[in-house]
């Protein structure tokens, strides 16, 4: 243990602690910008400078480990002046379109300027204009607003191990960009949107569909249907001022009706459907000897990650479409037929906690209804802003249900929104499919929680089903490497790209804090507990769908509407071939 003095107060911390962390223990909040909990400190911005007695220069407290007997000062005239100057320099290079900025109400840079008492900017604006990167279907980067804190680079490389973003050039020319500046849309970016969560300003935002959706709603010739993902119901309230984790299912449905959507359904319905298909696929693969482990396919971030980095393992991924896409395919077939609507006049909108869903909806193969299965994807943040724009008093809305046909759901569906939830839901149904009985202990605790990787095993008919769950793509890699090396002991693996699962998706209210995400997740488990039906195969709307329309899981119609295929990306297979040719002696 190491004892030091910070602003005259003694504090004892373990070796390796930084000054910034040590100061926090005694409730001294050292101002900072590039530092962020959950990311490796980088020491880029210099805002967290402090003075160490006996040292000539100020030091960056976020990267400086404590030393025995150190005397630290965190706020004196010299420090305050330098911090202010650093911030002024940053601001001199920053656009001032705050009124119309995406982050006008939650800009960390603006807050810092206010907190540090910056009242004037003495420096002339000097930075060159930089073009926006609009190559991606999901995420827009605006380098004009970038403050070069490097948080996005760290989350993309260290947490997600995707490496789509990095610094390029040096000195005054330093920028954050993609490889060869080709743009996110032409990179390995999986659209997880974690970079949006960590960006202190509006340099990274989602590609918005708000205008398109307003237009569809106000078009009398269109019938606009909407579906909402599980994780939206525990975050939308938060985005509209309610405490984090508040469950707002009923208010959410009511608000969507008020916004003018013609039919309000629920993605949870198709989450149940996914379980029917995926559970059947698992059982089939176990019984008939398909590629194991089977890996879940609901997360489009993970799917694109696999297509880039594990093209050799694509046969392990379930062929099931994600709930969003299953829903989309049914909206323009099953629902259109039932309601006598021309599918050409149906506009299918989804509300998602996710930025990667925007990309998924645009994948060329996602039009098995004969039309684009999902036309527009809105994030939780976008729908919140539409609700605000329409002047809806969200907090005081009465609860309303979704349309039953494709809106009734089980507890198994709602936990899809949190890491481990898909696994738990699948096991509840797979157990029934294998044994013919319902799993008695329905709460499968070992797959819950926020540890990076969790494992469990379930006994069914004398057979042990071994499962694993990973969230955050860095964690997922560990399980994938096991499969690659042939040592994976599992039958079934759930992967969600975002830390925490969809509750921490790139479209959710901003925040990288895992505790906050856990709060949302716990709220989903609570909803599950309180629902009358907690197993996907017992959902009467699903039974009806199979009876009246689809036939049976994995049947011909299901195969056509609900299943998909994957594509190796970035010439990965090509490069492998080249390497093979090159490795042979000539």
């Amino acid at each position: 243990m190491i004892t030091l003095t910070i602003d005259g107060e003694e504090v004892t911390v373990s070796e390796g602690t930084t000054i910034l962390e040590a100061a926090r223990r005694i409730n001294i909040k050292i101002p900072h910008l590039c530092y962020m909990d959950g990311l490796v400190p980088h020491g880029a911005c210099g805002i967290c400078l402090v003075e160490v007695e006996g040292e000539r220069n100020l030091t960056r407290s976020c990267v400086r480990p404590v030393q025995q007997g150190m005397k630290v000062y965190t706020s004196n005239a010299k420090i305050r002046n330098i911090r202010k100057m650093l911030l002024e320099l940053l601001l001199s290079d920053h656009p001032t379109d705050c009124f119309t900025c995406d982050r006008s109400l939650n800009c960390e840079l603006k807050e810092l300027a206010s907190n540090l008492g910056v009242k004037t900017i003495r420096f002339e604006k000097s930075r060159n204009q930089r073009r926006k990167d609009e190559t991606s279907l999901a995420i827009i980067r605006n380098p004009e607003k970038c403050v070069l804190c490097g948080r996005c680079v760290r989350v993309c490389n260290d947490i997600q191990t995707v490496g789509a973003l990095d610094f390029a050039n040096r000195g005054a020319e330093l920028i954050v960009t993609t490889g060869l500046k080709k743009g996110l849309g032409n990179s390995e970016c999986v659209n997880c949107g974690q970079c949006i969560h960590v960006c202190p300003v509006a340099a990274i935002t989602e590609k918005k569909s708000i205008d398109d959706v307003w237009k569809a709603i106000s078009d009398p010739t269109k019938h606009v249907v909407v579906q909402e993902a599980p994780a939206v119901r525990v975050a939308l309230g938060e985005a509209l001022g309610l405490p984090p984790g508040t469950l707002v299912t009923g208010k959410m449905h009511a608000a969507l009706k008020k916004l003018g959507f013609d039919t309000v359904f629920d993605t949870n319905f198709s989450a149940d459907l996914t379980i029917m298909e995926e559970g059947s696929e698992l059982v089939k693969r176990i019984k008939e000897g398909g590629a194991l482990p089977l890996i879940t396919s609901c997360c489009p971030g993970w799917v694109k990650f696999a297509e880039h980095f594990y093209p050799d393992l694509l046969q392990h991924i379930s062929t099931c479409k994600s709930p969003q896409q299953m829903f989309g395919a049914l909206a323009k077939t099953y629902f259109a037929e039932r309601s006598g609507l021309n599918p050409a006049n149906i506009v299918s909108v989804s509300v998602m906690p996710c930025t990667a869903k925007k990309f998924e909806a645009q994948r060329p193969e996602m039009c098995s209804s004969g039309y684009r299965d999902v036309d527009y994807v809105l994030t939780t943040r976008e729908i919140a802003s539409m609700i605000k724009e329409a002047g809806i008093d969200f907090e005081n809305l009465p609860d309303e249900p979704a349309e039953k046909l494709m809106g009734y759901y089980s507890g198994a569906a709602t936990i899809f929104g949190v890491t481990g939830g898909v696994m738990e839901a699948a096991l509840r149904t797979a157990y029934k499919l294998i044994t013919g009985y319902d799993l008695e202990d329905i709460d499968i605790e070992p797959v819950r929680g926020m540890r990076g990787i969790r494992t469990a095993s379930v006994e069914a008919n004398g057979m042990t089903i071994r499962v694993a769950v990973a969230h955050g793509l860095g964690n997922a890699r560990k399980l994938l490497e096991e499969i690659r090396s042939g040592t994976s002991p599992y039958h079934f693996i759930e992967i969600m790209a975002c830390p925490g699962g969809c509750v921490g998706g790139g479209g959710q209210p901003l925040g990288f804090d895992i505790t906050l995400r856990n709060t949302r997740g716990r709220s989903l488990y609570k909803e599950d507990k309180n629902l009358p039906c907690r197993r996907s195969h017992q959902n009467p709307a699903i039974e009806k769908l199979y009876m009246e329309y689809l036939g049976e899981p994995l049947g011909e119609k299901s195969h056509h509407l609900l299943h998909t295929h994957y594509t190796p990306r970035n010439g990965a297979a090509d490069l492998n071939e080249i390497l093979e040719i090159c490795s042979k002696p000539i």
Partner: protein
Amino acid sequence: MTLSILKENIKGIETEEEKLRIFCELHKIIDTYRGTTGAPIRILQKAQELCGYLPEPVLMLISKELNLSLSKLYSILTFYHFFTTVPKGKYVIQVCKGTACYVKGGQKILDTLKRDFNLEPGGITEDGKFSLDMVRCLGCCGLSPVIAVGNDVYRKVKPSQLKDILSKYK
């Protein structure tokens, strides 16, 4: 051969067999340095020797073999002035923008090259004959403003002389 990477453009290398030879060469280079300190930089250096610049398919292969993201590789190569991702011309023009040359009109030379030859620092003419680098000092400030074309140095250059100077190079 149906590999799409062989369809990618590498300047100065026409046939797919030739490209494949380059890739095999590259593979050997990568194998030589794999695991050593500073491997990416050494490999980039050798790769640039091989092709004259760092074309995209070459970078993709290095990125794949070193298990290093393309953005990381780009980060490394843009840090050093030496590396270039655009092909160099047959003749490299260097225009000095050191203090003396700048004061004596180095910027005007750059402006003229841009206006009359559509040539910017880091760029190359359409016919591939000239590429332009901006440098900080050629070590003969008394002769400013100075430019160099290939190994020839020109002193006290006026923008109006550029056309004549460049017309000497075939």
